[in-house]
C-alpha cells in the first residue's frame, strides 16, 4: 500500500464517518461540528488531488465561514442547552432506500464507464495557473461571481434585518 493509498483510505474513513454524524446525530449543534470535520476532510481530499489552493479556500470559506454562520443561525433559532436543540428525523427507511438507490445508480454507471488511466503528471505551479485562468479565460464568470456574492449578501442582510 503506497502512502497515497493509505492517506486516501484514512481521509475517506474520516469523511464518511463525520458525514454520517452530520445526518444521524440528534443534537443539531453536534451536527454542525461534524460538518466542520467533514469539510476539513474534503479539503484534505483536495490536497491529495494536488490542489493546495482549493484546500485553503475550503478551510477559509467552508470550515471558517459557513460553519460560523450556521452556528449563529442555530443560536438565533434554538436554545443551545435543553431539549429544544434535539431534533428527530423522519422517513428514515424511505430516505435510506432512496439514497441507496441513487448510490447504486451512480456506481452502476461508474462500473459501466470504468474510468481508468493513470494520473497524468502535473508540471508547474497549479496555484499560479489557477490565478492566470481566473483573469484570463474565466475573467467574465469571475466578475459575475463577484456581483452574485454582493447581491446574495445584500439580500441576506435585507431578509435578516431587525424590524423597524
Amino acid at each position, binding site marked *: 500500500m503506497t502512502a497515497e*493509498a493509505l492517506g*486516501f483510505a484514512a481521509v475517506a474513513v474520516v*469523511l*464518511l464517518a463525520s*458525514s454520517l454524524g*452530520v*445526518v444521524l446525530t440528534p443534537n443539531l449543534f453536534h*451536527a454542525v461540528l461534524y*460538518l466542520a470535520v*467533514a*469539510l476539513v476532510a*474534503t479539503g484534505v*481530499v*483536495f490536497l491529495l*488531488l*494536488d*490542489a493546495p489552493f*482549493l484546500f485553503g*479556500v475550503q478551510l477559509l*470559506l*467552508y470550515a471558517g*465561514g*459557513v460553519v460560523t*454562520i450556521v452556528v449563529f*443561525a442555530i443560536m*438565533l*433559532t434554538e436554545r443551545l442547552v435543553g431539549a429544544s436543540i434535539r431534533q*428527530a*428525523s*423522519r*422517513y428514515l427507511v*424511505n*430516505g435510506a432506500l*432512496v*439514497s*441507496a438507490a*441513487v*448510490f447504486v445508480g*451512480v*456506481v452502476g454507471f*461508474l462500473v459501466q464507464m*470504468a*474510468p481508468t*488511466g493513470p*494520473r*497524468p503528471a*502535473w508540471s508547474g505551479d497549479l496555484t499560479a*495557473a*489557477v490565478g492566470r*485562468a*481566473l483573469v484570463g479565460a*474565466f475573467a467574465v464568470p469571475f466578475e459575475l*461571481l463577484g456581483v*452574485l456574492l454582493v447581491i*446574495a*449578501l445584500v*439580500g*441576506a442582510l435585507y*431578509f435578516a434585518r431587525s*424590524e423597524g
Partner: protein
Amino acid sequence: MPLGAYLILAALLFAIGLFGVLTRRNAVGILLGIELMLNAVNINLVAFGRFHADLSGMIFALFTIAITVAEVAVGLAIVIVIFRVRRTIEADHLDLLRG
C-alpha cells in the same frame, strides 16, 4: 489512487447528504445535508480536472464553493425570517403556502 476511488467516495458522500436532506425535520439540518451533497460535487469536479490534467475542473470547484457560501447565507437568512414569523423551523410545520 485511481479516478474511480474518488468518484465512489463522492457518490457515497452525496448519498449520505441526500439521506440527511430527506430525513431531517429541522430546516438547518436540511441545509447541512445540502452542504454535504455540494461537497461531493466539488470532489468530483476536482478529481475529473486532475485526472484529465485540465484546470477547468478546479476553477469550477472554486465557483461552486463561492456560490455555495452565498446560498448558505441567503438560506439561513430565510430560516431566521421564518423563525421570526412562525417561531419554528420544523420543515413539516412550514405549510404557509398550502392551499
